[in-house]
């Protein structure tokens, strides 16, 4: 079905039928310059405020402005919103909003037959069609007959809406079409526009002409839906059954920053945050740079090495040292991490993972820094590693990391990834007094009997001493130190004792870990193991199969080092174990898989994927079903 309605009729037609849907997946796609990320985040805010559960997947190119109209330049934003609790941004879109032929070409394969396409027909010019290899205009040649296609001349509509407005030229008209599309989506999904108008008014309060243009175009998009006889139905997605409370819509990097600032306040210790800009981690720096009044100092260093080294220097000074980066930056920081291991100072290193190796795919997600985090330093230099599993969980994980780093006097690595860093979900706001425990940090001031490497018998942590404390002057550094006095020691037996005790200290963290929790079946045929940002997809897939009666359970690991002490007992409850992660190769297995096999001798299966995108529930379900049938897990590579 092809509908063309480039001339809106002036009189409203009969109100379309409102159809209630359980959940909808929309993908906005266009050129990098088309403002798709903004349209996506704005609409996400609208549906979140309306009480839907949400999950998002922004997917954009590494280039700020790739050549206009090309496949390489397509920027997408997928939003899944639902009246039920959801955990993934959806395998495939129901509605595709495309601003040009390249966006259509990139996304069409994933749109199921019968899905809705709303296309900006103005961009389907011969030149743009040729750029992506369309011989004929797909909006007109019947090739989209299996879909519900709405071709709309968005730029022409914007031009009409902006007619007569001073200071608005061709560029502004072309740029405003994302707001027009947003207005249309508001209409199509029955969203109240008040909040959006308020937000626009606030955002552009300093430039009245731009504000007027945005308001006009947004309203025109909405009115278009209302007045043309184009859409036969609109959709209503009811509120999701969320727990009572106050909510806000948050993204992972924002939550990492919020968690760190919260930890600083809860510890009553200032925080020093050293960072060097890197995709996709820079937003943590941007967010936390606003939190100066929470005791956080941010320092944009000259490089990744200076970023971590400045944080170590600050930690020696008795403040909470933090640094954030992504894979390549993490590699540069490794030597300094070894120094922090040796000096036994608290330090939080956050790695927002992206696809590697080398520069890799900077804007695409992956979980391939696990082995680098666990083992990537010279010498025996163990440190704790934990991973956040969702945008909201970045908050909890950041606080947990500060708590453990200070309790055990150790550098600690937090792994997040590009997917949860940029993904959004609703956050039920905690009671800041009751829900977040204080972080107890002690500084030694008593010079009596002080020895630099004397240890707390329970945690094996050495004492943290602030310079400025009289009679506790001491030196630390990268050379091996005496087991007790902290003097430089080349003694061979002492070295082995120090290596052992540094490792034992990390293992001691086990005493603070809660028992492992399996979701779905508690015993039976298959245990699915995951870690980090794959939580939502694994949970959703396992949940569905378990409710259908399959004996399948899901265990998601927060702690990668040390591993929880009860893992072997949990594994023993299932006939098979499969480790799913976004790393590794289809032939040699994933990184956690290797780690678990090395640590526990568990004969686990693996399912890995490195395509820069999250797992889909469909591929996971297919893999688990194959394993349950006794077949090998299929490859994620679509051949």
């Amino acid at each position, binding site marked *: 079905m092809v509908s063309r309605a480039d001339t809106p009729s002036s009189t409203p037609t009969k109100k379309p039928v409102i159809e209630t849907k359980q959940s909808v997946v929309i993908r906005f796609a266009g050129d990098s310059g088309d403002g798709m990320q903004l349209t996506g985040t704005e609409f996400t805010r609208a549906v979140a405020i309306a009480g839907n559960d949400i999950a998002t997947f922004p997917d954009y190119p590494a280039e700020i402005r790739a050549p206009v109209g090309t496949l390489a330049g397509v920027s997408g934003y997928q939003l899944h919103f639902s009246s039920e609790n959801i955990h993934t941004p959806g395998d495939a879109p129901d509605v595709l909003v495309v601003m040009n032929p390249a966006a259509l070409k990139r996304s069409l394969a994933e749109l199921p037959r019968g899905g809705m396409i709303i296309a900006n027909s103005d961009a389907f010019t011969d030149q743009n069609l040729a750029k992506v290899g369309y011989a004929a205009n797909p909006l007109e040649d019947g090739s989209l007959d299996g879909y519900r296609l709405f071709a709309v001349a968005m730029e022409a509509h914007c031009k009409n809406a902006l007619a007569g407005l001073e200071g608005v030229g061709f560029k502004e008209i072309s740029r405003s079409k994302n707001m027009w599309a947003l207005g249309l989506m508001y209409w199509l999904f029955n969203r109240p526009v008040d909040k959006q108008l308020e937000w626009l008014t606030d955002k552009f309060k300093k430039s009245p002409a731009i504000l007027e243009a945005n308001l006009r175009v947004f309203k025109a998009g909405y009115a278009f839906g209302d007045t043309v006889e184009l859409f036969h139905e609109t959709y209503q997605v009811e509120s999701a059954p969320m727990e009572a409370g106050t909510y806000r819509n948050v993204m992972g990097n924002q939550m990492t920053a919020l968690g760190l600032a919260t930890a600083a306040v809860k510890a009553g210790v200032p925080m020093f945050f050293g960072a060097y800009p890197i995709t996709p981690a820079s937003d943590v720096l941007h967010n936390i740079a606003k939190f100066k009044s929470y005791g956080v100092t941010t320092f944009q260093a000259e490089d990744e090495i200076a970023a971590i*080294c400045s944080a170590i220097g600050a930690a020696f000074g008795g403040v909470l040292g933090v640094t954030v980066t992504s894979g390549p930056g993490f590699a540069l920081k490794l030597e300094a991490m070894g120094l922090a291991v040796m000096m036994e100072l608290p330090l939080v290193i956050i790695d927002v993972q992206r696809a590697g190796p080398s520069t890799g795919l900077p804007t695409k997600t992956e979980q391939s820094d696990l082995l680098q985090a666990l083992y990537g330093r010279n010498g025996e230099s163990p440190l704790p590693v934990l991973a956040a599993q969702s945008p909201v969980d970045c908050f909890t994980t950041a606080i947990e990391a500060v708590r453990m780093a200070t309790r055990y006097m150790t550098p600690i690595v937090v792994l997040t990834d590009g997917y949860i860093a940029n993904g959004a979900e609703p956050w039920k706001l905690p009671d800041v007094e009751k829900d977040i425990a204080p972080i107890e940090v002690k500084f030694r001031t008593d010079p009596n009997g002080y020895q630099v490497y004397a240890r707390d018998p329970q945690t094996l942590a050495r004492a943290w001493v602030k310079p400025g404390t009289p009679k506790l*002057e001491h030196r630390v550094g990268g050379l091996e130190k005496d087991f007790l006095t902290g003097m430089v020691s080349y003694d061979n037996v002492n070295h082995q004792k120090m290596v052992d005790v540094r490792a034992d200290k990390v293992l001691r963290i086990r005493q603070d870990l809660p028992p492992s929790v399996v979701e779905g079946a508690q015993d039976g045929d298959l245990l699915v193991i995951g870690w980090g940002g794959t939580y939502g997809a694994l949970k959703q897939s396992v949940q569905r199969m378990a409710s259908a009666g399959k004996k399948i359970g899901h265990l998601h690991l927060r702690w990668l080092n040390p591993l929880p002490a009860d893992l072997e007992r949990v594994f023993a409850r299932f006939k098979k174990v499969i480790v799913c992660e976004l790393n590794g190769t289809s032939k040699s297995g994933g990184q956690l898989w290797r780690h678990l096999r090395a640590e526990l001798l568990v004969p686990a299966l693996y399912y890995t994927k490195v395509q820069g995108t999250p797992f889909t529930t469909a591929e996971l379900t297919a893999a688990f079903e194959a394993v349950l049938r006794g077949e090998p897990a299929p490859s994620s590579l679509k051949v």
Partner: protein
Amino acid sequence: MTSANAPSSPSSPAGNGLVKLTRKDFQSKSEVRWCPGCGDYAVLATVQRLLPEIGVARENMVFVSGIGCSSRFPYYMETYGMHTIHGRAPALATGLKVARPDLDVWVITGDGDSLAIGGNHTLHMLRRNPNLKVLLFNNRIYGLTKGQYSPSSEQGKISKSSPMGAIDYPINPLQFALGCQASFVARAVDVDKGLYDVLLKAHQHKGTAYVEILQNCVVFNDGAWFDLRDNKETKGKAQLVLVDKQPMLFDNGSKGIGFDRATMKPFVIDLVAEPARKGEVLIHDETDPAGMMAHVLAGMSYPQFPVPLGVLRRHTRPTYEDMVQAQHQKAAEKGVGDLKKLIYSGDLWDVR
């Protein structure tokens, strides 16, 4: 915020109590393990003599170093200290100073540590201007790794890694520092009395003080500074001891430095032969805000010119940590640390 240069608290004017400390109080229990005859001993002794005099409590002093012979320095000081990784001391020290502006932070580094692997950190430390005292031990050789040419080694240097002579063009540390907008740049010889005064002035300066110490490696590069350090015959001719607001005279006052405006070049005036030209001798002005003459001085080398010693440039501009604190104070005016406000912000909605 307390200034690091002022006594840290009235109750302890110097040291851990009310008793004035001595050089001995700054000697740690670690046995000093530099080679016999190493220039580092002289620097250590000078620093240990200086510290009791600067009015800072010992517990407020931190020595931070990188890697190299000189970087063992913090272990020998009975202060707080960090012996870190190669080249990174400026980054650690900057972080420490920003986090703890009340501390008196010293950086100990060498020509390999500061000018090779740590060149980038040195650059950015100097332009940011945190209140750090940086002692660059320049012996023009890699000593700890047993004798490879360094970034400050002269071209043609025969070393273990350059058997046919080094072809790398050497860096001039003070020209580099001035190019990085360093606010305090000075030079001294490890065994000369002038080192004490230069370090005192460095400490009094509020900002990064970069002091090149011409230091002798007795094992791998003995005599690197022979003409101006060891040879009594040439020493007077080879040293230009700079005194603020005084004429630039050397060789017992028999010679002076002039400057030709037409060619923009310095020249030597022989005042014995031409006493009438005394008026042409340049007057040293270390605090000149433009600091152009410091660049000229930093470029002078023996035998064409004497080597300038003392303070080449001293210019006060805001320190990095002060500017950080100012932003914190400004942010604090809007309220401090209300966690609920932080979390309950943005677009909120209630589910009942």
